[in-house]
């Protein structure tokens, strides 16, 4: 009896997380897939069938938007990594006793509502705003130059909004690196750059990996930056899904597009983790 209880204990203890997963993941996922296969209209209601047409139409009519979303997502994630890594590195290695203050400062802007922050960029980057205005006045930029309504404004917005989410995982791994390893490398006549390449970078790989997932997945599905900072031809798949859902009331299409996006993200993540994933990380660590 006691043995049985011992065997059951881990399952019983994990019960809450199972319930959580079923209620907040399995059921919504199933209803989304069901909706994607449904036929009908919002007035007469829907019946679930084996209609895969929405998947085909959804993919073929919005190929461009899918491609654009993956391009924006990849570009913004790589740029975010390039910006966040030095910051996380500096805080972890040179932050001294003020480390938590610096981290707090990085998080600080995120206490303001997301949409307000994006709108603030609209103000900062406006054509005659306090950034571009003076540069145009002294002739450094042509009068017609603008940042807003271009894809770079959208990618920039994505980078800005994901910055903190990349700094934090990087900081956590960098902070844990045993400083004696760096000292040992120096003792063995490794230059600072060799020490960085051979010791710090490989050991921080899990942070790079975790941050990439966090930022890439969020950015590919984003729609706010494209809606507020973009122009004609910067529509992301998130915007299309949102239009299908609210404006068009085309629930099957919205569900099909979401499913396709999810599938594509899963494939992308699998490929990515195959290339730089957990095994590679373990190799480095060993």
């Amino acid at each position: 009896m006691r043995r049985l209880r011992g065997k059951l204990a881990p399952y019983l203890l994990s019960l809450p997380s199972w319930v959580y997963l079923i209620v907040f993941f399995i059921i919504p996922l199933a209803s989304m897939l069901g909706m994607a296969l449904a036929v009908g209209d919002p007035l007469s209601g829907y019946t679930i069938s084996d209609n895969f047409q929405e998947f085909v139409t959804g993919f073929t009519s919005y190929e461009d938007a899918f491609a654009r979303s993956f391009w924006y997502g990849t570009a913004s994630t790589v740029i975010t990594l390039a910006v966040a890594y030095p910051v996380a590195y500096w805080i972890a290695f040179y932050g001294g006793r003020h480390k938590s203050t610096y981290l707090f400062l990085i998080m600080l802007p995120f206490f303001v509502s997301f949409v307000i922050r994006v709108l603030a960029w609209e103000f900062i980057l406006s054509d005659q705003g306090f950034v571009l205005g003076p540069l145009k006045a002294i002739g450094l930029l042509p009068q017609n130059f603008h940042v807003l309504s271009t894809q770079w404004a959208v990618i920039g917005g994505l980078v800005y909004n994901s910055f903190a989410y990349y700094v934090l995982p990087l900081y956590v791994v960098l902070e844990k690196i045993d400083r004696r390893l760096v000292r040992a490398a120096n003792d063995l006549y490794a230059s600072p750059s060799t020490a960085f390449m051979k010791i710090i970078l490989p050991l921080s790989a899990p942070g790079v990996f975790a941050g990439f997932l966090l930022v890439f997945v969020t950015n590919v599905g984003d729609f706010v930056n494209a809606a507020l900072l973009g122009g004609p031809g910067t529509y992301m798949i998130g915007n299309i899904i949102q239009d299908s859902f609210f404006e068009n009331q085309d629930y099957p299409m919205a569900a099909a597009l979401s499913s396709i996006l999810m599938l594509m993200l899963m494939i992308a993540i699998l490929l990515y983790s195959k290339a730089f994933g957990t095994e590679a990380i373990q190799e480095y660590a060993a």
Partner: protein
Amino acid sequence: MSQDDQNGRDNTQAFYRGLTQPRLTRQNFLRGSGAALMAALAPQIARAEKVTDWKAWWAKQVPTKEFVFANWPLYIDVSSDGKTHPTLNAFTKQTGIKVTYDEVIQDDPSFYAKVAPVLKSGSPTGYDMIVMTDGWYLTEMLMQNWLVPLWREKVPNFDKYAGSSVKNPPYDPGNKHSMVWQSGLTGIGYNPKLTKREITSIDDLWDPAFAGHIGMFSDVNEIGSFGMYKLGINPTTSTPDDWQKAAAVLQDQKAKGLVRQYYDQSYINALENGDIWITMAWSGDIYQANGKGYTDLKFVVPKEGATIWHDNMCIPVGASNPLSALDWMNYYYTPEVAGLVEDYVNYICPVPAAQDYILNVIKDPAVANSPLVFPPADELARVHEFRAFTSYAEYQQWLNTFNPVVQG
């Protein structure tokens, strides 16, 4: 109260309304989405018995002393301490009906998503009156018989005072189910300092001189209508062929690099910042922008036409105090009450006679003489309604025609 106080407060009111009540807010897109999905999948169970004879239904209703009114935020007059609504208080005093006023409607799609599952299951929403904009969601409620046909004889003031622009609208012929709370115009907003000339025509939105500084709306009803004005077509009587032609001129406008962006309500920031010089615009936004200090900005009803939209008072089925709702409609449709509300809300008043009341009794010429609040008759003569769709298939065809313009 001094004149300045009055205006100052009005502007603040209008300003906050602008901040908190974006008409197509992106923030709210996710809110209620789950509810809508559930509504779509909900099996058709527990339908309450359908009322067929509404005359008999009205005859059965007993007057009550309560009234639950769901409206958009900052869409009614507020007392100077900001705590109560004078017109509602006066209504209670006169009729003894206690009003529960809920500012719960952020935008039509999410409010629809909230009440649709309830109405579908045949349960009451808890509201005796809701305010919905003319458009697909209102049409959808009408098609599903979710709005109670009004007992028109109980609202004599509507026939007496309602302006011609709110009578017999195409989306609800004969005002059988709805009466307008406020209207607004979609026309052209511009900054004369940047366009360097006055704007009078739709063609100005296609002027290469403004290339890259023209704003268009991302809402397909709005932009589709403007494509048709460009061609001299009235959207309410247009055919799918006309839609194709309108989509083609809009595509051409985009291909030539004229359009800066397809905006939701954020166009007003771009206009204020000078990023766009000329744009499709809502009259109320330009009024608010002028009040905020952007006094250069102008609004014009182009000579080819513009769009008038309406937020409508309706009684959802299952309302427990429908007679009180009729009393309120009748009470609202007077120059005094509509005038009091209008002096705060500053959209377009459904009661033209309220203009005199605001000018001579409230003594607020800024509002009374504003062509944005009381548009002159010649302007109203050239405005069009949104197209009223007769089926989801028709609506979908419109979407399939105009979505590629905005999404491409």
